[in-house]
């Protein structure tokens, strides 16, 4: 069995598109593998659980028991990709804990590949958070998300040194459309006959980017 990927979608800032990215990635993994396990650590933001309730469970890392419930699942090499939607309020605690318990080292031993997707922003909190991640995470496993809707083409230089995945901004009316609870990216791809629509191409482009990302990170270990 090839390695099990664990995607950690994070930012120390609220409302930068973490949950939207988590939805998109989860739907891609569901389409590709038929299975995904999502963990929603968002108590104060839009919730992944509301969008994908059948494959998502909530997690709380404010105490040791909650950390055990989450991390003892994430470290399992079972072939099912995991997506963690890490709320801004839990950012510091999560990475403090993973550093302390040696998550990355243990993951290597168990054929689990953590991939941290850092949603960039131009503020000071993000500027402080990124170097902290760089200290802990090898550059090839740390992906900066250049969300055009957030950084408006001004991705901080430091954050662009490693791997960057670019999310182009959707027009406001389309953003409102995809933000509706019953909306599914994959269903849209399946049902929309006109493949030239902006949304169709946007979803396809991002799915291809995810596929390339996963291939580049997992293929050598397979």
């Amino acid at each position, binding site marked *: 069995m090839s390695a099990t990927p664990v995607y950690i979608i994070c930012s120390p800032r609220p409302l930068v598109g973490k949950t939207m990215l988590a939805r998109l990635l989860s739907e891609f993994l569901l389409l590709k593998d038929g299975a995904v396990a999502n963990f929603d650590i968002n108590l104060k933001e839009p919730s992944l659980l509301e969008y994908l309730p059948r494959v998502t469970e909530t997690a709380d890392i404010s105490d*040791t028991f909650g950390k*055990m419930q989450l*991390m*003892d699942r994430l*470290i399992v090499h079972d072939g099912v990709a995991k997506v963690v939607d890490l709320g801004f309020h839990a950012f510091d605690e999560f990475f403090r*804990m993973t550093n*302390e*318990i040696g998550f990355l080292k*243990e993951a290597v031993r168990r054929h689990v590949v953590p991939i941290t997707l850092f949603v960039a922003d131009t503020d000071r909190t993000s500027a402080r958070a990124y170097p902290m991640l760089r200290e802990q995470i090898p550059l090839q496993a740390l992906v900066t998300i250049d969300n055009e809707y957030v950084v408006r083409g001004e991705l901080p230089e430091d954050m662009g040194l490693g791997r960057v995945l670019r999310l182009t901004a959707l027009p406001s009316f389309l953003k409102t459309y995809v933000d509706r609870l019953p909306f599914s990216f994959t269903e849209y791809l399946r049902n929309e006959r006109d493949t030239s629509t902006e949304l169709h191409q946007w979803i396809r482009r991002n799915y291809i980017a995810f596929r390339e990302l996963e291939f580049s990170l997992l293929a050598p270990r397979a």
Partner: protein
Amino acid sequence: MAKPVVIVVGADKGGVGKTTVSRTLLDYFSANNVPTRAFDTESPRGTLKRFHPEITEIVDMTTTADQMKIFDTLNAASPSVTVIDVRAGLLSPALASLRDIGFLDAAKAGQITFAVFHILGPSIASLDEIAETANFMQGAKYFLVKNFINDTQFFQWDQSTYNSYFHRIKDATDLVIPKLNEMAYEQVEVSSVPFLKFVANKGRDDEAANYSFVLRGYVRHWLANVWSEFDRIKLTDLVGAKPGVRGGEK
């Protein structure tokens, strides 16, 4: 033949973590390939023996027979390092006994390496023991162990109180044992295995266990911090061992 080394771990106050520190010492020596034997003075139950049964013997230090068992075998015993976990309230009487049998004089003369790990709790009563114990410490290495079993500050916020205790004894060395996550500590307790085995996810007989990865991580991190304190005080030098790459740190 290597000089015998005796390490006494004790405090007159109970519940300050004497056995926990003894366990970290035994793990440290094991990882550094230093043959060690241990005596547990919590007769007749023995907490240390529960975690390290192969190398630990339960003794009653107040009896002459058991004192002989420990000290008359120092030169004959194959492990050159002896760790004695002295139960609560027995530290001062034990040191007095050692003085009476001439053991402290032998340490002073350099025939034996003698070290005392005095475990301090977060109370004035615990700190008051320092002066009492210090009277016996000529010729011994005296370590004042601040065990952060809770969020105590050891009166560091009151410099005069702090200095009056910690700077009173010239040759004492401070040592810090950081706090271990409560659930991790309890899980090791329940498992009744040495910290090293817990970290390695092994049971009593080296069989594969299924401890929480998170709790093992907390223990590994904590144990590394404790060992770095032992490295700082050059504990391997003290017991005459060569420092090298040790197990459990891979």
